Protein backbone atom coordinates (compact mmCIF):
# COMPACT_ATOMS: atom_id res chain seq x y z
CA UNK A 1 0.00 0.00 0.00
CA UNK A 2 1.38 3.38 -0.89
CA UNK A 3 0.42 6.93 -1.80
CA UNK A 4 0.52 6.30 -5.54
CA UNK A 5 -2.19 3.65 -5.43
CA UNK A 6 -4.57 5.92 -3.52
CA UNK A 7 -3.81 8.80 -5.89
CA UNK A 8 -4.46 6.50 -8.84
CA UNK A 9 -7.87 5.65 -7.38
CA UNK A 10 -8.53 9.37 -6.85
CA UNK A 11 -7.53 10.09 -10.46
CA UNK A 12 -9.86 7.31 -11.63
CA UNK A 13 -12.80 8.69 -9.68
CA UNK A 14 -12.05 12.19 -10.97
CA UNK A 15 -11.86 10.97 -14.59
CA UNK A 16 -15.10 8.95 -14.30
CA UNK A 17 -16.85 11.98 -12.82
CA UNK A 18 -15.45 14.19 -15.59
CA UNK A 19 -16.81 11.79 -18.19
CA UNK A 20 -20.25 11.94 -16.58
CA UNK A 21 -20.22 15.72 -16.20
CA UNK A 22 -19.24 16.22 -19.85
CA UNK A 23 -21.38 13.55 -21.49
CA UNK A 24 -24.68 13.59 -19.61
CA UNK A 25 -27.64 15.67 -20.69
CA UNK A 26 -29.72 15.52 -17.53
CA UNK A 27 -28.86 18.16 -14.93
CA UNK A 28 -29.13 15.65 -12.08
CA UNK A 29 -26.72 13.25 -13.81
CA UNK A 30 -24.24 16.08 -14.38
CA UNK A 31 -24.40 16.78 -10.65
CA UNK A 32 -23.55 13.12 -10.00
CA UNK A 33 -20.46 13.51 -12.18
CA UNK A 34 -19.36 16.58 -10.23
CA UNK A 35 -19.87 14.67 -6.98
CA UNK A 36 -17.63 11.87 -8.19
CA UNK A 37 -14.93 14.39 -9.13
CA UNK A 38 -15.06 15.87 -5.63
CA UNK A 39 -14.97 12.35 -4.23
CA UNK A 40 -11.63 11.91 -5.98
CA UNK A 41 -10.36 15.10 -4.35
CA UNK A 42 -11.40 13.79 -0.93
CA UNK A 43 -9.60 10.47 -1.41
CA UNK A 44 -6.44 12.23 -2.64
CA UNK A 45 -6.38 14.68 0.29
CA UNK A 46 -6.89 11.87 2.81
CA UNK A 47 -4.06 9.87 1.22
CA UNK A 48 -1.77 12.89 1.37
CA UNK A 49 -2.56 13.29 5.04
CA UNK A 50 -1.79 9.65 5.73
CA UNK A 51 1.33 9.14 3.63
CA UNK A 52 2.97 12.52 2.97
CA UNK A 53 1.93 15.37 5.24
CA UNK A 54 0.09 14.64 8.47
CA UNK A 55 -0.64 18.34 9.01
CA UNK A 56 -4.18 19.61 9.45
CA UNK A 57 -4.25 21.22 6.00
CA UNK A 58 -5.12 17.99 4.18
CA UNK A 59 -8.06 17.37 6.54
CA UNK A 60 -9.26 20.93 5.97
CA UNK A 61 -9.23 20.26 2.21
CA UNK A 62 -11.50 17.26 2.84
CA UNK A 63 -13.88 19.51 4.79
CA UNK A 64 -13.83 22.12 2.01
CA UNK A 65 -14.58 19.41 -0.59
CA UNK A 66 -17.49 18.14 1.54
CA UNK A 67 -18.92 21.66 1.77
CA UNK A 68 -18.46 22.08 -1.99
CA UNK A 69 -20.47 18.87 -2.47
CA UNK A 70 -23.27 20.13 -0.25
CA UNK A 71 -23.35 23.51 -2.02
CA UNK A 72 -23.33 21.89 -5.44
CA UNK A 73 -26.22 19.61 -4.48
CA UNK A 74 -28.35 22.35 -2.95
CA UNK A 75 -27.86 24.92 -5.70
CA UNK A 76 -28.03 22.25 -8.41
CA UNK A 77 -31.39 21.00 -7.22
CA UNK A 78 -32.66 24.56 -6.81
CA UNK A 79 -31.61 25.45 -10.38
CA UNK A 80 -33.17 22.21 -11.67
CA UNK A 81 -36.39 23.07 -9.83
CA UNK A 82 -36.43 26.65 -11.16
CA UNK A 83 -35.75 25.47 -14.73
CA UNK A 84 -38.38 22.78 -14.57
CA UNK A 85 -40.94 25.15 -13.12
CA UNK A 86 -40.42 27.93 -15.65
CA UNK A 87 -39.49 25.99 -18.82
CA UNK A 88 -40.53 22.40 -18.04
CA UNK A 89 -37.10 21.08 -19.01
CA UNK A 90 -34.59 18.95 -17.10
CA UNK A 91 -31.95 18.63 -19.83
CA UNK A 92 -29.07 21.02 -20.42
CA UNK A 93 -29.43 20.91 -24.21
CA UNK A 94 -33.09 21.91 -24.00
CA UNK A 95 -32.25 24.74 -21.60
CA UNK A 96 -29.54 26.04 -23.97
CA UNK A 97 -31.98 25.97 -26.92
CA UNK A 98 -34.52 27.96 -24.96
CA UNK A 99 -31.91 30.63 -24.20
CA UNK A 100 -31.42 31.60 -27.83
Amino acid at each position, binding site marked *: *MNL*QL*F*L*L*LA*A*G*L*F*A*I*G*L*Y*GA*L*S*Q*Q*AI*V*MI*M*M*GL*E*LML*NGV*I*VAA*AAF*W*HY*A*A*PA*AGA*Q*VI*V*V*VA*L*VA*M*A*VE*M*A*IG*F*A*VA*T*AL*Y*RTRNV*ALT*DAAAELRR
Partner: protein
Amino acid sequence: MTVLFWVLAPLAAASGFMVFRFNSMARVTISLLVSFLASGALLILLGLGYLGVVVILMMVIEMIIMAVFMVAYMMNPAGLIQMSMYHNKPGSLAVSIGTFALLGAGIFAVPWPRRPGARPASPTFQLGAALMGPQMLTMITLAFVLFATMVGAVVLATRRGRYDRFGDDLTRRPPADPVRGGVGR
Protein backbone atom coordinates in the same frame (compact mmCIF):
# COMPACT_ATOMS: atom_id res chain seq x y z
CA MET B 1 -5.13 -2.73 5.21
CA THR B 2 -3.94 -3.96 1.83
CA VAL B 3 -6.77 -6.48 1.49
CA LEU B 4 -9.36 -3.87 2.44
CA PHE B 5 -7.89 -1.42 -0.07
CA TRP B 6 -8.09 -3.94 -2.89
CA VAL B 7 -11.71 -4.61 -2.00
CA LEU B 8 -12.82 -1.00 -1.49
CA ALA B 9 -10.87 0.79 -4.23
CA PRO B 10 -12.15 -1.27 -7.19
CA LEU B 11 -15.62 -1.16 -5.64
CA ALA B 12 -15.51 2.66 -5.44
CA ALA B 13 -14.27 3.02 -9.03
CA ALA B 14 -16.53 0.36 -10.56
CA SER B 15 -19.70 1.56 -8.83
CA GLY B 16 -18.79 5.14 -9.81
CA PHE B 17 -18.47 4.04 -13.43
CA MET B 18 -21.76 2.12 -13.32
CA VAL B 19 -23.54 5.35 -12.37
CA PHE B 20 -23.34 6.33 -16.03
CA ARG B 21 -24.17 2.87 -17.36
CA PHE B 22 -27.37 1.97 -15.52
CA ASN B 23 -30.74 2.98 -16.98
CA SER B 24 -32.79 2.84 -13.78
CA MET B 25 -32.49 5.93 -11.59
CA ALA B 26 -32.80 3.83 -8.44
CA ARG B 27 -29.81 1.73 -9.52
CA VAL B 28 -27.89 4.87 -10.48
CA THR B 29 -28.43 6.39 -7.05
CA ILE B 30 -27.53 3.21 -5.20
CA SER B 31 -24.43 2.79 -7.35
CA LEU B 32 -23.23 6.30 -6.50
CA LEU B 33 -24.00 5.64 -2.84
CA VAL B 34 -21.89 2.46 -2.92
CA SER B 35 -19.02 4.45 -4.43
CA PHE B 36 -19.22 7.04 -1.66
CA LEU B 37 -19.56 4.39 1.06
CA ALA B 38 -16.41 2.70 -0.23
CA SER B 39 -14.60 6.06 -0.29
CA GLY B 40 -15.76 6.80 3.27
CA ALA B 41 -14.49 3.40 4.37
CA LEU B 42 -11.15 4.17 2.69
CA LEU B 43 -10.95 7.40 4.70
CA ILE B 44 -11.51 5.40 7.88
CA LEU B 45 -8.84 2.98 6.68
CA LEU B 46 -6.44 5.92 6.29
CA GLY B 47 -6.99 6.91 9.91
CA LEU B 48 -9.49 9.71 9.34
CA GLY B 49 -12.33 8.09 11.24
CA TYR B 50 -14.35 11.23 11.87
CA LEU B 51 -14.25 12.50 8.29
CA GLY B 52 -14.96 9.00 6.96
CA VAL B 53 -18.10 8.72 9.07
CA VAL B 54 -19.12 12.26 8.02
CA VAL B 55 -18.76 11.25 4.34
CA ILE B 56 -20.83 8.10 4.89
CA LEU B 57 -23.63 9.83 6.83
CA MET B 58 -23.75 12.82 4.50
CA MET B 59 -23.86 10.68 1.38
CA VAL B 60 -26.58 8.37 2.69
CA ILE B 61 -28.87 11.37 3.29
CA GLU B 62 -27.80 13.09 0.07
CA MET B 63 -28.48 10.05 -2.07
CA ILE B 64 -31.95 9.62 -0.55
CA ILE B 65 -32.75 13.22 -1.51
CA MET B 66 -31.16 12.71 -4.92
CA ALA B 67 -33.28 9.61 -5.56
CA VAL B 68 -36.44 11.63 -4.92
CA PHE B 69 -35.31 14.39 -7.30
CA MET B 70 -34.26 11.93 -9.98
CA VAL B 71 -37.59 10.13 -9.95
CA ALA B 72 -39.32 13.53 -10.01
CA TYR B 73 -37.39 15.14 -12.86
CA MET B 74 -35.97 12.41 -15.06
CA MET B 75 -38.15 11.60 -18.04
CA ASN B 76 -37.35 7.89 -17.83
CA PRO B 77 -36.86 7.20 -14.10
CA ALA B 78 -37.36 3.45 -14.17
CA GLY B 79 -35.14 2.95 -17.22
CA LEU B 80 -37.85 0.90 -18.92
CA ILE B 81 -37.51 2.76 -22.22
CA GLN B 82 -34.20 2.45 -24.03
CA MET B 83 -33.07 6.00 -24.67
CA SER B 84 -29.78 7.86 -24.94
CA MET B 85 -29.25 10.78 -22.58
CA TYR B 86 -25.72 11.58 -23.74
CA HIS B 87 -24.18 14.26 -25.85
CA ASN B 88 -20.69 14.13 -27.39
CA LYS B 89 -19.97 10.75 -25.84
CA PRO B 90 -16.72 10.04 -27.75
CA GLY B 91 -15.35 13.51 -26.99
CA SER B 92 -16.19 13.18 -23.29
CA LEU B 93 -14.60 9.74 -23.17
CA ALA B 94 -11.44 11.06 -24.86
CA VAL B 95 -11.18 14.00 -22.44
CA SER B 96 -11.68 11.82 -19.36
CA ILE B 97 -9.23 9.14 -20.53
CA GLY B 98 -6.71 11.86 -21.37
CA THR B 99 -7.16 13.42 -17.94
CA PHE B 100 -6.68 10.05 -16.25
CA ALA B 101 -3.57 9.34 -18.30
CA LEU B 102 -2.13 12.76 -17.49
CA LEU B 103 -2.87 12.43 -13.77
CA GLY B 104 -1.55 8.86 -13.74
CA ALA B 105 1.67 9.92 -15.43
CA GLY B 106 2.09 12.71 -12.89
CA ILE B 107 1.40 10.37 -9.99
CA PHE B 108 4.21 8.00 -10.99
CA ALA B 109 6.60 10.68 -12.28
CA VAL B 110 6.64 12.93 -9.22
CA PRO B 111 8.94 11.98 -6.33
CA TRP B 112 6.46 12.32 -3.50
CA PRO B 113 7.79 13.48 -0.13
CA ARG B 114 7.98 11.05 2.74
CA ARG B 115 6.04 11.75 5.88
CA PRO B 116 8.22 14.00 8.06
CA GLY B 117 6.97 12.75 11.41
CA ALA B 118 4.41 10.56 13.11
CA ARG B 119 0.72 11.07 12.52
CA PRO B 120 -1.12 12.79 15.39
CA ALA B 121 -2.70 10.56 17.99
CA SER B 122 -6.12 12.10 17.41
CA PRO B 123 -6.77 13.36 13.85
CA THR B 124 -10.19 14.64 14.93
CA PHE B 125 -8.61 16.82 17.60
CA GLN B 126 -6.07 18.02 15.04
CA LEU B 127 -8.85 19.03 12.63
CA GLY B 128 -10.90 20.74 15.34
CA ALA B 129 -7.89 22.63 16.68
CA ALA B 130 -6.98 23.77 13.18
CA LEU B 131 -10.52 24.92 12.31
CA MET B 132 -10.85 26.80 15.59
CA GLY B 133 -7.32 28.21 15.32
CA PRO B 134 -5.14 28.84 12.26
CA GLN B 135 -7.89 27.79 9.82
CA MET B 136 -10.58 29.96 11.41
CA LEU B 137 -10.84 32.10 8.27
CA THR B 138 -11.54 28.95 6.23
CA MET B 139 -14.23 27.94 8.71
CA ILE B 140 -15.88 31.37 8.63
CA THR B 141 -15.76 31.44 4.82
CA LEU B 142 -17.37 27.99 4.66
CA ALA B 143 -20.05 29.14 7.08
CA PHE B 144 -20.90 32.16 4.92
CA VAL B 145 -20.87 30.04 1.78
CA LEU B 146 -23.30 27.59 3.36
CA PHE B 147 -25.53 30.44 4.53
CA ALA B 148 -25.51 32.01 1.05
CA THR B 149 -26.31 28.57 -0.39
CA MET B 150 -29.34 28.20 1.85
CA VAL B 151 -30.64 31.64 0.88
CA GLY B 152 -29.88 31.10 -2.82
CA ALA B 153 -31.48 27.66 -2.92
CA VAL B 154 -34.68 28.93 -1.29
CA VAL B 155 -34.86 31.96 -3.60
CA LEU B 156 -34.31 29.80 -6.70
CA ALA B 157 -36.72 27.07 -5.69
CA THR B 158 -39.56 29.21 -4.40
CA ARG B 159 -42.64 29.36 -6.56
CA ARG B 160 -43.37 33.07 -6.08
CA GLY B 161 -40.77 35.82 -5.86
CA ARG B 162 -40.98 39.51 -5.04
CA TYR B 163 -41.69 40.44 -8.66
CA ASP B 164 -44.75 38.20 -8.60
CA ARG B 165 -45.96 39.97 -5.47
CA PHE B 166 -44.97 43.61 -6.04
CA GLY B 167 -45.01 43.78 -9.86
CA ASP B 168 -42.19 44.35 -12.36
CA ASP B 169 -41.22 47.72 -10.87
CA LEU B 170 -41.81 46.55 -7.28
CA THR B 171 -44.34 49.32 -6.63
CA ARG B 172 -47.57 47.39 -6.34
CA ARG B 173 -49.20 47.93 -2.94
CA PRO B 174 -50.65 45.86 -1.43
CA PRO B 175 -48.81 42.88 -2.95
CA ALA B 176 -50.76 40.40 -5.05
CA ASP B 177 -50.90 37.37 -2.80
CA PRO B 178 -53.11 34.38 -3.48
CA VAL B 179 -54.25 34.46 0.15
CA ARG B 180 -54.67 37.78 1.90
CA GLY B 181 -53.05 38.14 5.29
CA GLY B 182 -50.76 40.18 7.49
CA VAL B 183 -51.26 43.63 8.86
CA GLY B 184 -53.44 45.82 6.64
CA ARG B 185 -53.60 43.35 3.74
